């Protein structure tokens, strides 16, 4: 399956960190964000003022040798701290609130958009990839919109305030510190560049190791029976050693990084001590002012480091923004026209009062079709009339493209040319939801949702009563399965229904389809290993379910094929033979005849004995 992951993990650069693309999601929170930014910068303002309190104390009490007014001073100091506490709390809380709210809105938007995307999208992207768009990209973007912004506000305004204060207090001394800033910036950029690459490599190696553990544990049976413990261990140790080397290498860089930044801070300190000490000795500057500069010299480099690291993180999030917006901009290959939506409503707001009843006549009229990700036509000028209540079987080898017709009937895909008519009208003239509400679908690999048996059975018909449920269960002889369970209909089926066997899941999904009482039924028979008795039960269930409905069946069992009103034989994605069983069997040497006789040849020979 081709995976749409053309973008590697390399950082993409979007204008303004991709924020313009996210603007619709940020809009509701802009006022709150403005308050947050204001309060955040005020917090930094107070932080940058704290050394000035020291200066005041040194210059006004210590230097003058008096404690007059120190009570008042303490009060102002305490009130400042209290004000800071309030602002700090409010802005931090707002930041968290914005992060989570944006996060939530993005997740909802992604999830809702996915509900309307066509099948070609799901066929081209695996579940893990899509899931990461919904769950992890959104989290990272939320974090970026709130905390990364806040980091920039905090650190940026701190730097600005400190620079302003320094320049006001003593321009010459301030220039010494300012001169060091470009060096700091270059240093941080140099190391950060390397660290991003190294850390990405470490993360990749780490997930390889987790994958290895997964393989070693889920594959225990295979590893033991094949006696390949040593071989697997060797490969595993190679990976852990690679990880160790990379991790130490990365630490080498990050340790050099911290060491040199702190070293630079000390240089700033030395510089202030030297030049500042000199002018203080000369009596040009007060001792309190010197202490202010000493604090700033030690304190200004960290915010600079922070701001650059934050910027590099912002750049790293670009990939997520890019992928997320690509998902939202992904257009559905199958979409209802505005007129149809006007009349029948959309996926989330159906206008059921305008819905017509579906009878069940299906017609393919001169249909040509190729999949969106391919160019080769799998259907060409195909015509087929399926009157209400008839039963169409589709046979052929695994992977021969048997599901194409079914996908067209369900309008999971639309014909490239020609029309699919439902009750004589083009399927595109009615809404997807209308069609889907009238279709029942039983999958080859039955899919149940975690929850109770009842939840699952009512999935296609939320208003079904328990009586109806039991009736449906009896029809497919699945009632014994549910009776055997601890809590009957309230029993939990486990995640994806994994508390049940495949055969049981299959029978329950038949019951689910019956409850929905669809006019058109699509069945994809199971090929998985089910013992003969269960298989019989499923076959009986099928014959009950299809009675009176238009049905399309992707068949593997010949018994179901034989009774079909119409059989389509598929090979290499194309329909090569069609007709009833009797008609097809007359074509001796034909593909269907071959397929059919081979399975029974051996049995017949033996049975004749």
């Amino acid at each position, binding site marked *: 399956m081709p995976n749409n992951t053309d973008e590697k993990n390399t950082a993409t650069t979007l204008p303004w960190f991709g924020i313009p693309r996210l603007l619709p999601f940020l809009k509701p929170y802009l006022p709150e964000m403005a308050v947050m930014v204001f309060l955040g910068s005020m917090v930094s303002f107070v932080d940058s003022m704290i050394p000035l309190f020291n200066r005041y104390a040194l210059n006004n009490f210590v230097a003058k040798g008096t404690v007059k007014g120190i009570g008042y001073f303490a009060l102002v100091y305490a009130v400042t701290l209290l004000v800071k506490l309030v602002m700090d709390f409010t802005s*931090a809380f707002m930041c968290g609130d914005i992060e989570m709210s944006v996060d939530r809105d993005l997740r*909802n938007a992604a999830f809702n958009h996915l*509900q309307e995307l066509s099948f070609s999208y*799901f066929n081209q992207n695996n579940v893990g990839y899509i899931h990461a768009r919904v769950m992890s990209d959104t989290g990272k973007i939320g974090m970026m919109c709130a905390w990364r912004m806040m980091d920039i506000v905090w650190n940026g305004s701190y730097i600005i305030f400190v620079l302003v204060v320094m320049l006001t207090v003593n321009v010459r001394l301030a220039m010494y510190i300012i001169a060091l800033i470009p060096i700091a910036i270059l240093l941080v950029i140099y190391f950060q560049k390397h660290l991003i690459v190294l850390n990405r490599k470490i993360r990749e190696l780490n997930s390889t190791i987790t994958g290895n553990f997964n393989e070693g544990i889920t594959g225990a*049976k295979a590893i033991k029976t094949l006696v390949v413990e040593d071989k697997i*261990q060797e490969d595993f140790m190679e990976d852990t050693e690679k990880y160790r080397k990379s991790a130490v290498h990365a630490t080498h860089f990050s340790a050099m990084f911290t060491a040199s930044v702190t070293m630079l801070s000390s240089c700033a300190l030395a510089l202030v001590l030297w030049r500042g000490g000199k002018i203080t000795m000369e009596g040009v500057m007060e001792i309190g002012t010197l202490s202010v500069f000493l604090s700033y010299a030690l304190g200004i480099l960290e915010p600079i480091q922070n701001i650059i690291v934050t910027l590099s993180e912002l750049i790293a999030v670009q990939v997520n923004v890019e992928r997320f917006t690509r998902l939202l901009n992904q257009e559905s290959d199958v979409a209802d026209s505005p007129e149809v939506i006007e009349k029948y409503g959309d996926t989330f707001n159906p206008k059921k009062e305008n819905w017509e009843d579906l009878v069940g006549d299906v017609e393919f009229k001169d249909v040509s079709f190729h999949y969106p990700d391919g160019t080769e036509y799998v259907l060409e000028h195909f015509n087929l009339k399926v009157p209400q209540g008839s039963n169409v079987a589709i046979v052929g080898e695994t992977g021969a493209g048997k599901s194409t017709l079914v996908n067209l009937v369900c309008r999971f895909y639309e014909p490239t040319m020609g029309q699919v008519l439902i009750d004589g009208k083009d399927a595109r003239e009615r809404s997807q939801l209308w069609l*889907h509400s009238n279709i029942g679908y039983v999958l080859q690999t039955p899919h149940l949702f975690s929850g109770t048996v009842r939840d699952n059975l009512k999935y296609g018909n939320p208003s079904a009563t328990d009586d109806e449920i039991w009736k449906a269960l009896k029809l497919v002889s699945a009632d014994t399965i549910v009776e055997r369970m601890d809590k009957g209909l309230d029993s939990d089926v486990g995640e994806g229904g994994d508390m049940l066997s495949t055969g049981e899941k299959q029978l329950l999904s038949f019951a689910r389809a019956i409850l929905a009482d669809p006019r058109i039924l699509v069945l994809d028979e199971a090929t998985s290993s089910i013992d003969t008795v269960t298989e019989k039960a499923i076959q009986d269930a099928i014959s009950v379910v299809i009675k009176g409905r238009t049905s399309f069946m992707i068949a593997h069992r010949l018994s179901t094929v034989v009774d079909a009103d119409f059989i389509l034989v598929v090979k290499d994605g194309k329909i090569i033979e069609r007709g009833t069983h009797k008609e097809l069997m007359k074509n001796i040497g034909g593909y269907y005849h071959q397929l059919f006789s081979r399975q029974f040849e*051996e049995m017949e020979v033996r049975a004749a004995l």
Partner: protein
Amino acid sequence: MKNNNERFLTKISMVLFFLKGSKALFMFGVIFSMMVAFLDMINPKIIQYTVDYLIGDSQSAMPFYMQMIVNITGGRDYLRAHIAAIACVVVFIALICAIFRYLNKILNSMAAEKLICRMRDILFEHISHLPFAWHSENHTGDIIQRCTSDVDTIKNFLSEQLTALFRIVIMIGLGLTFMIQIDLKLSLISAAFIPVIVLYSLFFHNKIGSAFENADVEEGKLSAIAQENLTGVRVVRAFGREKFERERFEKKNTEYTKMWVHLMKLLAAFWTSNDMISGMQGMTVLVAGSVFCVQGRITVGELIAFVAYNAMISWPVRLLGRVISEMSKAGVSIDRLRYIMNSEVEQDEEDAYEPPLDKDIEFKNVSFAYENGTAEILRDVSFKVEAGKTVGVLGGTGSGKSTLMYLLDRLYNLPEGNGSITIGGVDIHKIKMHYLRENIGFVLQEPFLFSRTIFENIGITSKSAKMEDVRKAAKMASLDETIKNFDEGYDTFVGERGVTLSGGQKQRTAIAQMLVSNPPIMIFDDSLSAVDTETDAKIRAALDKHAGQATTIIISHRITTLMHADHIIVLSHGKLVEEGTHDELVKNNGLYRKIYDIQIQGGGEGIA
């Protein structure tokens, strides 16, 4: 379960075992971190003396190392004239400090990475040698979590928290010492805040821990809804339940968000209030210090130094509570790993040997029940597989067919007194386990492919598989054609990061995998169920030709797959109910006949 012979009786004994080879590195790392802490503490001292001696005129006793610095750099008068020399000293100390800081970090990282590497290797090896019964008793997700996040927790505990604890204690200790040297009373005022901050932070981190766990659980639920929606997208669409799905997701999403917002509120309250307490400490020190200074108790330089020390210890103090509360979590993780390490690995009996295995296999009165299950899976099963012959096994789901084969391959051990399984008269427990398994080619019902190339997968059992052997095996398993259709042929990567193979293709790969090693005993556990009938027949024909001498056991639901076997046994609910050749069994009118009828009936009418 196995308390009597636990390998690691205490947490410490296991941690020490893991620490082998990295202890010394950790220790050197800690020593350098202490030196860094000490050197960091010198700067405020230098500032203090610069202010007092050089800029001001106050006199106070100098500790020996300050005198040393002064003397080396040329004495007080020289320094007054050349204040740049002091700056040089500061830079010089900073340089040494930077080197130590680097050494501390790199040594610590070397130790930590060595530790985690060793932990992972040991765990992986141990787990792969644990009996299969252990694997089926324990949940995969849980074991993986122990091997990843618990390992990380322990690594962080040892390399970060424990070393941080050392550093914090040293920093606080040194800081307080320097502060006390300046003024005891002022130090007491400052120190009075320490227990408040530590306890507050300890209390908070303990409390918030469970809130974080709850949020994780909620996230898991939300994530599962999305996952199920995506995997079940066909069902959702076919039943037209998009709206329902949307509402369900939005509801859970809102709950989850609310939970986090609440958590954020708590966190914000904690951070900011803790910040406030530290700020108050700074203010109190400044005010009281100024008063003392005016009173003449301390000099201006001392006040500046004191304020600097106070600021220096404020961060370690705030960290202390957090470190302590996180350390308590490590204990839980250690116990979780101890559970794995204390489970017993599979071992051969002392007198186990390697007899030839191309002999008759005999099951005698075999009964078996799984440890956690109550029902007996096998009841008194006896039959014989003659060397070089083919035996078919038929039975419904849960009839015990697979279990029978697991016992033969010793994935589970047959307890004493439950009958015996012998090969050439030798009890399989007397045969070396790896030797036994190497000689039994077992194609599993649900084949497992490794995330490697197809070539590597097929040739995995041999040290250096040759292309021709692999291709030959693939041809026999009717797989060669399929592989050639892949873009990269035999170099195609399978699994998550590569091509997804269909069930039938996987089964055929597993068959090819077994054929490469050409074992004297072959087991097919329903191995052709996902292969279409045509291919099934082709493969069996190829096998018949190839496996002339191998003893073969085939399990299947399909009569057509079994009918050519030399001997067929029929299992029902753990009991052997019928045996014989196909013809005998069909005449018998038993279970075999019944299943045969159902299977043949499907097409019977049509053909007639």
